[in-house]
């Protein structure tokens, strides 16, 4: 039986900019800590001709609060820190009764050579 657990995560603000060399930069600033239900952790590996591409998926189910609602509205401006890794939001499902929000997040490991 799958066991869903509540685990502490940090919700981060993302700020996008450009550095002196003209490179795009992303600044991650912690906004608050919360405790979602963590479920459906999936790690996947795709082997292309030259690289191994690891991609991890996860679901966080959070209580519906004003701050979480803002994540729903501005999905691109937030990331989640869980197990010391940075997770970006791919899909958001808002419960119809406005009581919870499920965030599906992904994380890409650096590609490794085959």
């Amino acid at each position, binding site marked *: 039986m799958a066991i869903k657990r509540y685990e502490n995560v940090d919700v981060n603000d993302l700020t996008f900019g450009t550095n002196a060399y003209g490179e795009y930069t992303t600044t991650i600033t912690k906004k608050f*800590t919360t405790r979602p239900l963590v479920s459906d952790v999936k790690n996947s590996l795709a082997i292309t001709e030259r690289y191994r591409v690891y991609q991890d998926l996860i679901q966080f189910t959070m209580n519906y609060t*004003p701050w979480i609602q803002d994540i729903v509205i501005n999905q691109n401006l937030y990331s989640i820190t869980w197990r010391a890794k940075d997770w970006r939001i791919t899909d958001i499902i808002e419960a119809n009764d406005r009581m919870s929000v499920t965030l599906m997040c992904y994380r890409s490991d650096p590609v490794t050579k085959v």
Partner: protein
Amino acid sequence: MSDTLGQVQYGSTRNPFNYDKFEQINRALTTGWLTLEEITQQLNLFGDESQDDYLSGLELAVRMHIEDYLGMPIFPVSYRSYYGISSIYASPVALDLPQVSYADSYGSGSVVINSVKYYNDDDPVTLTTLASTNYTYDPTGNKLILPNGTPSDINVNVTSPIVIEYTVNPNFLQAYPVIKQAALLLLTHLYNNRSETTLSKLQNIPYGVDALLRPYKPLVM
């Protein structure tokens, strides 16, 4: 008066609980009891402070429910009770206070008599304050005793000529973790269920709010 249960010796006209009516006249409506830290831990919100105002309001409702359920003030509650003419022909006169909490060895839960007033027989009637030397509070019987009886100019035409205002102080039990845990359970229920109706029947968990609070609910006779 044939019912003599609980009467004062030689005071044959005292019924148990001889007040006519009583009303709450003051209660803490803004002071928090559970801390936001306790609440956000319970709801797994942790650092999410965006609902703090809503949670504080919910906490007040929960606290008031626990107070009402146990008949035990968590913060001071003031009452006004009225006594009819049948209560005052006794010697000494004993006036029951309808809502009290027991005082513990820490001094909490005690009753403070704020005023004892009576309607005199002037025309028009005047609400007159009785000097505090004319009455004494009996904590063992939760009643106010007027050793010298009622004032001679009390109005016998007014339905409830004696009015007592008193405050019940917070009870020590409010600091018990088991009572706070019951409050957190109730708060979680109200947080998760914001509608009067649901499509499916909800079930109580074992050892829930009622089970946690039951040992502390005084037997009311």
